[in-house]
């Protein structure tokens, strides 16, 4: 039992309670990741493979948001494809309008509108397409549109204390609704094929291999920046509060916090990050379609984060790369086995490795590395990147 008989020895030493952005260990992980995606991949992979990795990295944006939203805050969204897709569609609308200049579309019955509108007997650009002529507006819309939708969903649900499985099901239903809507409104959205045949960004041909190479670095750079942003949120008081909300919601509420506001913020934040990934996807792949919006892609994105470790930002990125690499390898060689593997992965991760790759690393690899003097911090205690498992 601690006794209070010790006289106060003056004020606390600030350095003992410092909360660094990254520990030395954290910076080491960051450097390894940066070297891997900025140097190793571009040097070792051919243009086609590198473009594929670039595509995977756009999913990693979603996984990063899910770590904060699901792992740390306990809010499982099965609708992250909505935000990924909306970001991607915003970008695609801009690119499509650029590709549909009156000169390029002179053979259409209504020149100057996207080809699929012409095919569907639409003779005028719909009002919600018009602002996407502006690149500035598009850049704002890519993040703003998904965040506004996330805010509406989050506000309606969290202020009424809806969470857990109900929230998951509702977000999944919204993903389903959006997919049906996009497919059904062919004339306005390009339907099931999506918005295709995107060529230039402000006159720059995005389909050349040099452009793809540059876009890869843009994507990788933004991903690393997003990682740092997520980390900044995580080490802030807000980052600790959302974990506290996940574990002891009532205590946080009765410590004077508006719990719903914090959940809404985290959900919107994750949506915004996912949307950036979606926009970069469109740029690198050259089209956007409803197949990236619906139930199946949304839940697959959750498994990327789960495989990497739902509590670790680094894990989420590695998990995304690994699952997608496995997926493309499998589906090239044994397409019929892929669903077995994917299904098995869901079950195995949940049943046996709830902390994913990051958990395995921290349990089995890191203890050995920590013995190397000077590699990590002097007093390398528990890895601050791994927050212990949710209580539920």
């Amino acid at each position, binding site marked *: 039992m601690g006794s209070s008989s010790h006289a*106060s020895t003056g004020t606390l030493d600030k350095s003992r309670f*410092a909360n660094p952005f990254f520990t030395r260990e954290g910076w080491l992980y960051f450097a390894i990741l940066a070297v891997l995606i900025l140097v190793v991949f571009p040097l070792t992979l051919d243009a086609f493979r590198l473009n594929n990795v670039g595509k995977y990295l756009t999913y990693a944006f979603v996984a990063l948001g899910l770590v904060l939203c699901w792992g740390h805050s306990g809010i499982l969204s099965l609708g992250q494809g909505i935000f990924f897709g909306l970001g991607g569609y915003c970008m695609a609308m801009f690119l499509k309008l650029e590709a549909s200049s009156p000169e390029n579309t002179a053979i259409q019955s209504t020149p100057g509108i996207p080809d699929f509108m012409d095919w569907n007997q639409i003779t005028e650009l719909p009002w919600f397409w018009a602002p996407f002529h502006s690149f500035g507006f598009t850049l704002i819309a890519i993040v703003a549109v998904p965040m506004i939708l996330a805010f509406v969903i989050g506000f309606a649900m969290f202020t009424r204390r809806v969470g857990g499985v109900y929230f998951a099901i509702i977000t999944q239903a919204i993903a389903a609704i959006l997919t049906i809507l996009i497919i059904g409104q062919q004339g306005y959205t390009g339907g099931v094929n999506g918005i295709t045949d995107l060529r230039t960004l402000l006159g720059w041909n995005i389909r050349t291999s040099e452009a793809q190479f540059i876009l890869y670095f843009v994507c990788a750079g933004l991903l690393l920046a997003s990682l740092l942003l997520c980390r900044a949120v995580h080490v802030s008081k807000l980052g600790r509060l959302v974990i506290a909300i996940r574990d*002891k919601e009532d205590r946080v509420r009765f*410590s004077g*916090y*508006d719990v719903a506001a914090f959940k809404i913020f985290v959900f919107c934040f994750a949506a915004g990050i996912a949307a950036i990934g979606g926009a970069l996807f469109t740029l690198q792949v050259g089209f956007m379609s409803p197949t990236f919006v619906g139930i199946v892609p949304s839940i697959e994105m959750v498994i990327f984060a789960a495989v990497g470790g739902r509590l670790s930002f680094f894990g989420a990125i590695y998990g995304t790369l690994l699952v997608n690499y496995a997926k493309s390898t499998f589906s090239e060689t044994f397409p019929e086995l892929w669903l077995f593997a994917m299904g098995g992965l869901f079950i195995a991760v949940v049943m046996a490795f709830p902390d994913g790759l990051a958990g395995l690393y921290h349990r089995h690899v890191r203890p050995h590395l920590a013995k190397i003097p000077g590699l990590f911090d002097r007093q390398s205690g528990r890895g601050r990147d791994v927050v212990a498992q949710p209580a539920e």
Partner: protein
Amino acid sequence: MNALPATEHAPKEFVLEVEALTVSFDGFKAVDDLSFYVDENEIRVIIGPNGAGKTTVLDLICGRTKASHGSIRFRDRELTRMKEHEIVHAGVGRKFQNPTIYEELTVFENLELSIPRGRTVFGALGFRRDQAVLDRIEEIAEFVFLKDHLKTPSAILSHGQKQWLEIGMLLIQDPSLMMLDEPVAGMSVGERVKTAELLNNIIKDRSVIVIEHDMKFVEDIAHRVTVLHQGKVLSEGSMEHVKNDPKVVEVYLGH
């Protein structure tokens, strides 16, 4: 205001005025037309048999349960219409029956998350751990006997220390009214004595409502005691008065 308590304490302003408070769950009235008044700097203990509605009363005051009828006035503000976090901002703190702390975090971090600064989303994003924060945490930690445990993960504290930590988490917000649900449950005799001392220090600046079963502890701390039975006030007054009230004796011993 009702006649009886008003004549007893005529000139004083009450911190908390609970009047005609009623809540029913599917027709079952857990709290039934309940009225009581808490003074400045008072330690009020609520006792009563299981199911008397003690915890529900605290739930109602702090907004966790919404009242069906009646009013709860706290320093002239009506609490029944306010949200939970607004009630906390108004100056009401509440400790739960089982110590509810963030087990993943250290004592320091537990206290830090309870500091009433950076309570909004963007305030929390911009919150900095500056010297004022450290000083305040140190002050409170010392007050609740946990100064040597600031770096300890709270999960490995003893049960009694967890209770103190939660009290500290309330104190750091400097509430005018603290509500403690069974604060000495699971404490050793020594810890109980220290807690009684702690409570007597606390009320220099505030009022405290305590729910407790330990009659020895109640006698040590209570200024006045309210006995609840089936959602109603059965008896109220000094411990001496309550102990000798035949209605109370019957409820506790009669069955």
